[in-house]
């Protein structure tokens, strides 16, 4: 974290977060702070607790210990309306897009506007179409159903849904996983652009280094439940950290031993 950020209240702050499932300690001691309008990417191998970290911040998973503050406000243990108020700041793009397959595309995009903010349907539809255009989709997809779209198109709709209510914070869960390299780059560009347009704080998790380099201001590496490196994206090639080096070069040999069985 640069010296400049220290006098700001971090948008998201995690202190000593630990979470154990059964006998498996997924998060041991995670400390992270993300400045307003910063784009942080968490990298790390599969099963290192990246998704759990996101879900802890959202309150979908209750950490065993530690503190999480959003805009300086402690969020662990919040319920009802207070929890809702915090969640209203968030937008999230899920790994598999997680579109509601019983609803047409435009209702997916406008879901939060209709359900959460009681916007009129005609008005919400206009916003949805506009958001779809923002992610490069024509208005005529609005009435299709999610199952009629390809994986890349579903990701775009997921992105449109995530930004529909103009969130202050956006989470991206493996935004490029399962896409071809060209579509992955298109999604990366859209993410960068959307985050910039909104002036939002972005937190992404990925193991795609090309994607990480493109969308990140800062990168943090999660390994065995701890943040083992955190720095500017420009410094990642000179991190001097053997774990980071092994990961970004994708080598099988190195300090990180892949567990064949978990």
């Amino acid at each position, binding site marked *: 974290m640069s010296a400049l950020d220290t006098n700001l209240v971090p948008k998201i702050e995690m202190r000593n977060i630990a979470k154990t499932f059964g006998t498996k300690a997924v998060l041991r001691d995670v400390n992270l702070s993300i400045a307003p309008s910063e784009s942080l990417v968490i990298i790390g191998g599969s099963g290192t607790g990246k998704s759990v970290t996101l879900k802890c911040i*959202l309150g979908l998973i209750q950490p065993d210990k530690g503190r999480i503050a959003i805009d300086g406000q402690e969020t662990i243990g919040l319920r009802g309306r207070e929890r*809702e108020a915090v969640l209203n700041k968030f*937008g999230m793009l*899920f790994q*598999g897009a*997680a579109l509601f397959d019983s609803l047409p595309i435009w209702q997916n995009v406008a*879901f*939060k506007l209709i359900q959460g903010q009681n916007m009129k349907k005609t008005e919400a539809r206009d916003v949805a179409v506009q958001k779809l255009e923002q992610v490069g989709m024509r208005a005529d997809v609005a009435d299709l159903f999610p199952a009629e779209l390809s994986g890349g198109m579903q990701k775009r709709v997921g992105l449109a849904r995530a930004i529909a209510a103009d969130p202050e914070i956006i989470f991206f869960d493996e935004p490029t996983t399962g896409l071809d390299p060209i579509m992955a780059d298109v999604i990366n560009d859209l993410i960068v652009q959307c985050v910039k347009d909104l002036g939002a704080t972005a937190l992404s998790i990925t193991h795609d280094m090309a994607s990480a380099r493109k969308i990140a201001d800062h990168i943090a590496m999660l390994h065995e439940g701890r943040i083992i490196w955190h720095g500017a994206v420009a410094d990642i090639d000179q991190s001097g950290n053997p774990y980071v080096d092994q990961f970004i070069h994708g080598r099988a040999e190195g300090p990180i031993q892949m567990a064949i069985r978990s």
Partner: protein
Amino acid sequence: MNPLAPVGRATLSLFEAIGRLLLFAALGLSHCVRPPFYPRLIWRQMIEIGFYSLPVVGLTAIFTGMVLALQSYTGFARFSAESAIPSVVVVSITRELGPVLASLMVAGRIGAAMAAEIGTMRVTEQVDALTTLSTNPYKYLVAPRLIAGVTMLPILVIVADTIGVLGGYLIATFKLGFNPELYISNTINFLQVIDVVSGLVKAAVFGFLIALMGCYHGYYSKRGAQGVGAATTNAVASAMALILIFNYVITELFFSR
């Protein structure tokens, strides 16, 4: 290793599951009475449970009524007690067979559908997506199903009662040679309000149990196709077991003196 450890672990996990289920039921119920409501979703579930279950419930009821008349005839003829058939049919149908059989059939149909749908939503992160879109999954997914289950099952059971009695009537008059007017007047004279009311109370409870099991098992579905499959099986099996258990308990409450 401590030989008692597995026993303790099993006991603890049993209590954990019961606690989780009760908490789930309480949360689901509390969201049934707190706004915002989703009338469109409630309506859709009502159609799904009430309307689309009519054929299977009707089919079950008519054949149950028919076989009931036939069986009681072959039995009662030995004691020259054939005249008791109309009352036996109507009481068996309204008190027990209507609610229990209709609910078992609906449990197979609806419990499985609910668990599979919510389980798939869980597995594909749609349930988490609801939360990030400021919508409570209990309110959006669970409450409409519970409301529809509790309201639709009694209506289905009224239909089942009527068709069941009709089945008995058809066999008695066309096959066994009963006088139609006498059969109907015997049926009506013998029937008491408590017979129907107890059946409808059962139906409401069973409807709640079916929806609860479908939602609960779907909500806590494990990952993958296998997870959703297991959730579906468990939803149906547990709903059926609970229906039979609660059927005894409610009968005990209504009729034991």
